[in-house]
């Protein structure tokens, strides 16, 4: 304490000689005070008592959104534990979840609204009030709506599910473009289930416990695992932790006698618990599945129990199998130009997949006879390939014909069986409104949804609110080709990105930067970019306005991710909103008010603040549709209610019979689930599980209420012929317009296929002759993997940065004392502070390479190399030479390197030596049906630096 060194110095001073500020002082004091107010002593005493409470809520450290229980001490969250009542994770939370406190209280968090003052990408901002920020946004939205139509605005809600307030607002504003991260990730993976079931994700029946109706009428938790076989192809639940229950479910199933097989070019954590790891050649999953199907079809024998692969009962709830089979078989006589063998034979597949023919036969046989089983395919694997659709389609077909769908211990499409949520709160009614546009001098009317840039543009089959063709649309604008607004052209003028970071995770990074910084004259082509999030990531550097969204402990919403049956849980307010952050609801209402004040014709008080005066009102609306599924399956959840009626209401009201039954609408209506009800029930509502939910329609969402092997077919109903099937609608549009979408034209198609189809992937020298000639110069196939905690944003959490993952994220840091870098006057600048990272204490993204490959190239572990694609795209990183990957394949962490937002903390400091997988992604091709980037179709050469 400095005073101790000079006490006499001050004591010699004479008070009377000390200065007074006189009049100016009075001026100051009249205007500014201290900002403190006295409180009563009782109040103070109460507040001073140690106050500890626990709040049930839902995590958002990743989109698994597990049920958590947060300890709050004196208003500050101090620890995060699991919520045992949520069957999704039953108390288990992963490393990310346990580290959440470091995200919520991270210094790098966005705290205040900001407006850009430099050029995009410079990172120069000015803090503004919410009012100013919303003014800025609303003025531009109104201008763009007048000049280009509301369809020139995109609201992308990134990768967490509690986006409904944003979608509601933007749909009300009049744009059909509300989307989410699902638009640019693993759409091919979901395609098969979508075509066959109207669903999304096939997962094994291993979520435990499940609540099951007993013969005596009671409900009991069932903890038993019945699965005999799980095949995970390119799916690594242990590391993705995306479906929390698959971690313990897989090991428990195995301990109960199940066989686990993992198909993946790299050894995953999941593969460590497998009976068999099959390191398949990259991008040949469809080939393997096709050979399995052909083998099963050729060797099935009803009279031989050891060859009884097909369970014909699937025909009871399916249609179109004959057509599918005929089309599949039509390939059997064709010869593959690349290996001269007939398609789908074991030898053909062996050559392409590099899995021995006997092994493929064994795999097919095992899958055919070991029941119940589930064939599950993944995200960074099949989901990221140009032709992943085919693997997905074949995967579904294999699960269906072997009788594994919906049997206990078999496979479940979780999308079909999870609780409904959202309802009116999604704002879907708004896009049914009629609007008029002038096209080629003529006034044309249609629905807002018919202005969609994809459905009525180049990607008619891009379902699920998908906008896949980012960021090309930003550069080129939209031309509608189908529907009433055919030939209508409009630019994309405003892009809202909330909890997403597409510059790093959505296609080629440089292409994104190009699109976001493209100018027409002095103006940016996309005139308004708004970034809404809690952490500050790369995309934020290109935003005009940054809005601080309340962290997941400060906001409310609902979670319902991938369970085996209906359950829904609450994300609740745990702590007060920090700094000036606002919840999604707050932002929706505030921006709606702003637009209304400025005269926007579409925003009405009765749709917003009058309808939902509080946040709880909004989420209660979203809960009104829960659980909302057909009452079906065995054992029937509520024997007292009719089968296939839709169930609405709390589990206890349905249980107690406090319902009205509407026979006309086929609805059993109990008491609505509410936020308050959830709070009083450990934060979660759980309805009973049943199986065989495809029988008699059940939960299927296809037009025929059957599993559909055909996707464009005719039915006769009331003497009228009708086209049905998941592709029928798009084919009708194509026929009406007489124009084929360019991407499927490239496949040689005129329309979407009626049933089974086949085409080769891109950038694969082993399956596509066009690329074979490049193989010598670019000998490596490159794929990406998930790091436990390398969600785009969670890397800023220091605790997690120390934990290695699967040879992809390793403590390859040297002992470094680095300059802390902050956003400076001219972009990133050293702050003057030093941060010391001792050797081996910090992990960075690395390039996983087989030791033998490394030896051939004269590389040693830790060498810095450059990867380059035939298109000249480059990235660099340190090689990790290991035995855990197939020779000829390199694996990078997705989003785990080359990170240039200083908001990321230490990960940023190693951007010079860690690779960004999306620096290599081909921006000029998109997967042909959904328009998704080709993250996993990459060829590279390696150069030592």
């Amino acid at each position, binding site marked *: 304490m400095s005073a101790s060194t000079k006490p006499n110095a001050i004591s010699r001073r004479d008070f009377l000689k000390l200065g007074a500020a006189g009049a100016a002082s009075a001026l100051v004091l009249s205007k500014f005070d201290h900002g403190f107010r006295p409180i009563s002593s009782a109040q103070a005493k109460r507040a001073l008592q140690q106050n500890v409470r626990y709040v049930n809520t839902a995590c958002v450290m990743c989109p698994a959104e597990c049920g958590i229980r947060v300890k709050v001490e004196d208003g500050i969250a101090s620890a995060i534990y699991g919520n045992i009542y949520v069957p999704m994770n039953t*108390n288990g939370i992963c490393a990310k979840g346990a580290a959440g406190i470091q995200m919520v209280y991270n210094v790098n968090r966005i705290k205040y609204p900001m407006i850009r003052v430099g050029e995009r990408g410079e990172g120069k901002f000015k803090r503004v009030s919410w009012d100013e920020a919303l003014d800025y946004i609303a003025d531009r939205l109104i201008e763009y709506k007048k000049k280009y139509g509301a369809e020139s605005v995109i609201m992308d809600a990134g990768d967490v599910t509690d986006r409904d307030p944003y979608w509601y607002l933007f749909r009300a504003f009049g744009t059909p473009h509300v989307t989410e991260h699902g638009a640019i990730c693993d759409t091919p993976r979901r395609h098969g289930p979508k075509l066959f079931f109207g669903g999304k994700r096939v997962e094994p029946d291993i979520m435990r416990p499940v609540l099951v109706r007993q013969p005596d009428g009671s409900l009991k938790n069932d*903890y038993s*695992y019945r699965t005999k076989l799980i095949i995970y192809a390119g799916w690594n639940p242990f590391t993705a932790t995306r479906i929390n229950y698959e971690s313990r479910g897989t090991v428990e199933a195995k301990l109960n006698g199940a066989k686990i097989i993992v198909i993946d070019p790299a050894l995953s954590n999941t593969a460590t618990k497998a009976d068999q790891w099959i390191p398949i050649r990259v991008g040949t999953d469809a080939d393997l599945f096709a050979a399995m199907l052909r083998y099963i079809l050729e060797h099935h024998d009803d009279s031989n129990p050891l060859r009884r692969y097909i369970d014909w009962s699937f025909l009871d709830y399916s249609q179109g199998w004959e057509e599918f089979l005929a089309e599949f078989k039509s390939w059997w006589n064709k010869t593959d130009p690349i290996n001269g063998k007939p398609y789908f034979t074991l030898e053909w597949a062996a050559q392409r997949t590099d899995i021995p023919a006997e092994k493929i036969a064994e795999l097919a046989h095992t899958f055919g006879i070991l029941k119940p089983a589930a064939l599950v395919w993944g995200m960074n694997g099949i989901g990221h390939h140009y032709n992943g659709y085919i693997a997905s389609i074949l995967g579904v077909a294999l699960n269906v014909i072997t009788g594994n769908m919906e049997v206990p211990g078999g496979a479940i499409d979780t999308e079909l069986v999870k609780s409904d949520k959202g309802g009116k709160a999604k704002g879907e009614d708004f896009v049914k409104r009629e609007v008029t546009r002038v096209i080629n001098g003529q006034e044309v009317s249609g629905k807002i949804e018919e202005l969609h840039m994809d459905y009525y543009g180049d990607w008619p089959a891009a379902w699920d609110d998908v906008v896949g063709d980012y960021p090309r649309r930003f550069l080129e604008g939209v031309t509608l080709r189908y529907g009433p607004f055919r030939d209508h052209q409009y630019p994309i003028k405003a892009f809202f990105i909330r909890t997403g970071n597409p510059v790093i995770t959505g296609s080629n990074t440089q292409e994104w930067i190009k699109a976001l910084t493209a100018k027409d004259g002095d103006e940016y082509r996309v005139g308004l970019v708004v970034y809404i999030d809690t952490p500050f990531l790369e995309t934020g550097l290109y935003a005009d306005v940054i809005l601080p969204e309340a962290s997941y402990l400060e906001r409310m919403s609902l979670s319902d991710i991938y369970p085996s049956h209906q359950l829904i849980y609450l994300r609740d307010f745990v702590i007060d909103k920090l700094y000036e952050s606002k919840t999604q609801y707050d932002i929706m209402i505030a921006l709606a008010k702003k637009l209304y004040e400025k005269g926007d014709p579409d925003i009405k008080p009765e749709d917003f603040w009058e309808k939902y005066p509080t946040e709880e009102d909004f989420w209660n609306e979203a809960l009104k549709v829960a659980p909302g599924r057909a009452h079906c399956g065995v*054992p029937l959840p509520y024997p007292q209610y009719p089968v296939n009626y839709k169930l609405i209401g709390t589990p206890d009201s349905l249980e107690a019979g406090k319902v009205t039954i509407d026979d006309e609408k086929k609805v059993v209506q109990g008491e609505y689930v509410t936020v308050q009800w959830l709070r009083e029930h450990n934060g979660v509502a759980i309805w009973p599980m049943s199986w065989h939910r495809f029988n008699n329609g059940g939960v299927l969402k296809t037009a025929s209420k059957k599993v559909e092997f055909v996707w464009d077919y005719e039915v006769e109903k009331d003497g009228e012929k009708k086209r049905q099937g998941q592709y029928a609608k798009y084919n009708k549009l194509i026929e009406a317009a007489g124009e084929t979408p360019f991407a499927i034209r490239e496949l040689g198609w005129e329309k979407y296929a009626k049933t089974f189809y086949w085409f080769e992937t891109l950038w694969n020298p082993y399956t596509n002759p066009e690329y074979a000639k490049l193989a010598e110069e670019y000998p490596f196939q490159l794929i990406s993997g998930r790091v436990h905690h390398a969600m785009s944003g969670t890397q800023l959490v220091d605790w997690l940065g120390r934990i290695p993952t699967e040879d992809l994220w390793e403590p390859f840091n040297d002992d470094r004392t680095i300059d802390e870098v902050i956003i400076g006057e001219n972009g990133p600048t050293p702050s003057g502070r030093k941060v010391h990272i001792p050797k081996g204490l910090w992990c960075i993204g690395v390039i996983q390479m087989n030791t033998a490959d490394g030896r051939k190239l004269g590389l040693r572990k830790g060498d810095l190399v450059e990867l380059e694609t035939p298109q000249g795209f480059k990235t660099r990183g340190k090689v990790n030479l290991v035995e855990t990957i197939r020779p000829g394949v390199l694996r990078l962490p997705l989003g785990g390197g080359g990170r240039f937002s200083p908001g990321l903390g230490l990960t940023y400091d190693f951007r010079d030596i860690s690779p960004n997988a999306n620096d290599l992604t081909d921006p000029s091709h998109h997967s042909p049906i959904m328009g998704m980037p080709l993250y996993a179709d990459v060829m590279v050469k390696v150069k030592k630096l």
Partner: protein
Amino acid sequence: MSEPKEASILTKVASEVFAGVIAPALENAPLIQAAEDDVLAKEDVLVRMERELKRALKKTPAERRWVMVIDLRRCVGCHACTIACVAENKLPPGIVYRPVLTEEIGKYPNVTYRFLPKPCMQCENAPCTPVCPVNATYTNEEGVIVVDYDQCIGCRACISACPYASRTFDFGLNYTDKTIDGLAMTLGSKQAGKYETAGAAFEYGERRERKHEQSPIGNVRKCHFCLHRIKEGILPACTTTCIGRATFFGDANDPDSLVSELIAKPNVMRLKEDLGTEPRVYYLV
């Protein structure tokens, strides 16, 4: 298609089926008897272990014997336990009580990772306690080896004595290292950094701020089975967070406890048994 034989078996065992032991009586459901060692078959193990923990707490400390059982077959290598422990005990960089060692074994394609979660073994015959010159580390009445931070002089003899490398020295590293200290040097001010530099932890049930040159800085630190949680009837953080349900905890003196059941299995082992340390951490392999 269902086998008539299977269906008739199902009818017979319907009552057992609905006791939750085996599959519900579904027409097409194949019958699978839950495996003998399926500890999850009856109820969630966490619920059971917490009940048993509360039962054990009714006994005197000397009557109970805390043990941990880690089922390596269930460990999925997610490191959730490591982080849950760091978060619970507010551990600074360089200090981890429960690492998960990951080892690559074999050559491609016959290769795998082995995950070994490794807390303090809490040995019955602990080699680390006798070497402490000031009796700062000792086995408490419940059989947990603890460190009295106020007594510890930081000589690190126990670190050398531990055959499991379960002890680490708190060098006072912080996430801010060379930040505040560095500034202090440039300032010539003694003030900078003279304060708590990490949140308070509740290890051993005491609130301890992490202050410069004050305990636990300069002390030896180790896993203590989350004694502060046990006292409250809550299982250790690593046990409750485990997403593979691979960690079990309880009183081995209670013959009916889950851990007693597990350590009687033939597939149980302990690390470096030949040393005679008698660890209280068991592994199922």
